[in-house]
């Protein structure tokens, strides 16, 4: 696996998109912190940017990269290399380089401007988001042979998790405003990794006090140690399940 991983990583490093992504994140974060006089306002701005861009770039770049690696995969498969190993090496290479780009681009300014706990939480959830959306990209690129369709599926999934899902939750919230559905919302939020990450970070900020009753329910749940453990378990499952399905499909794929 290490040998294959070496070639994958070298290839990704040669690809300027990952560098451009890191620089873009750095520009956004530095300017957001520089423009706001108050660091926690800056964090909110950075948070919103990150929650939109990190999943989008991760899912798109990974999908396109996997499709463009078809030749590489075909070449290796006719040699004594395990199929699973090729897929795992691609996944490790992509997720580690995107996570590294995030760490260098957004991680450094966050560490400098935010208080330590919030910063750690933002960095960890950001890395999780990168890896989760790489896993989702692997799943959508194994579902179809057609590159355009695969990219389409990826963009739709991003759209769903980043925008539509919130809309659905809000809709439910207003429809059932008369009922005590706060607990149901807690469960619902686990169904979207983006929302789960948003909640985890918001609870570390002072603004969570303004979220009212729901915020208190969230805090009661996600603020505890068990809540944290459970949230990170769910985030891990968001990585493991899509990737495991894609790996199983890849092992049976005709090249």
């Amino acid at each position: 696996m290490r040998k294959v991983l070496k070639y994958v990583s070298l290839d990704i490093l040669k690809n300027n998109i990952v560098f451009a992504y890191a620089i873009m994140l750095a520009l956004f974060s530095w300017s957001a912190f520089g423009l706001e006089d108050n660091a926690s306002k800056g964090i909110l701005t950075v948070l919103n940017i990150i929650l939109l861009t990190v999943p989008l770039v991760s899912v798109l770049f990974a999908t396109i990269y996997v499709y463009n690696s078809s030749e590489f995969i075909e070449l290796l498969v006719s040699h004594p290399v395990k199929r699973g190993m090729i897929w795992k090496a691609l996944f490790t290479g992509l997720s580690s380089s995107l996570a590294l780009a995030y760490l260098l681009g957004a991680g450094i300014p966050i560490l400098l401007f935010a208080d330590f706990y919030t910063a750690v939480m933002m960095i960890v959830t950001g890395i999780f988001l990168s890896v989760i959306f790489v896993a989702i990209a692997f799943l959508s690129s194994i579902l179809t042979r057609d590159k355009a369709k695969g990219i389409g599926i990826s963009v739709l999934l991003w759209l769903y998790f980043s925008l539509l899902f919130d809309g659905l939750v809000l809709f439910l919230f207003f429809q059932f405003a008369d009922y005590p559905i706060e607990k149901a919302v807690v469960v619902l939020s686990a169904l979207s990794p983006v929302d789960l990450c948003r909640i985890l970070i918001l609870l570390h900020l002072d603004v969570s006090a303004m979220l009212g009753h729901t915020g208190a329910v969230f805090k009661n749940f996600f603020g505890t140690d068990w809540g944290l453990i459970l949230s990170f378990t769910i985030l891990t499952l968001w990585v493991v399940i899509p990737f495991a399905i894609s790996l199983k499909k890849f092992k049976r794929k005709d090249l």
Partner: protein
Amino acid sequence: MIEVKGISKRFGKLQVLNNINLELQKGECIALVGPNGCGKTTLIKSILGMVLPDKGDIFFNRKNIQNDNEYRNHIGYMPQIGRYPENMTIGQVIDMIKNIRNGKHREDDDLFRQFEIESMLFKKMRTLSGGTTQKVSATLAFMFSPQVLILDEPTAGLDPLAAHILKEKISTARRNGCLILITSHLLTELEDMVSQVIFMQEGNVILHKNTADLKEMTGSETLATSVIELLKTIPQ
């Protein structure tokens, strides 16, 4: 050496391979012939584990190839259309394959020298012509002195000199006891090296015979004419 037992493969509605049974012995040079789309490449890819058959098993030296990849150490494969990572140079591709193959084998750089790959090491795969790509494929297929050579349309796209070099190399490999499985439409080219013919049509093996027997059966002088005779006798 390679045993194919009852493999079938279906792509959607199309039955590409239909219960194929074959036994390929060491030291033979076998021509796999048949009309376009008869399943030759799919059969080859099944042997390589690139296509997974719906039914049946393939054995390499009596070992089932399912869930095995080590057997590919003994196979040199030259694809019909070589597809390589576009951003890599020839040198990087060759280094990578050498590295992955672990250097367990004696390296054979005859084709590397004769095709003058050295002078092109820094060329990106994207920029290569079809013929040059074929040269790289051939170099890689022969590089690790494999026991089995699987060559899919090896001379298509090569210039006459390169084709000649490659044919010489195939003959040498055969003399050294290699099992060679070769598909080609240019039957006259295969004339003097082939010892057996497998004829496929619509996913079925129609016949698997020694060249001498085949010539006798069809009453022709050459391999090319006997295959044409065959094509005429078999109802389309």
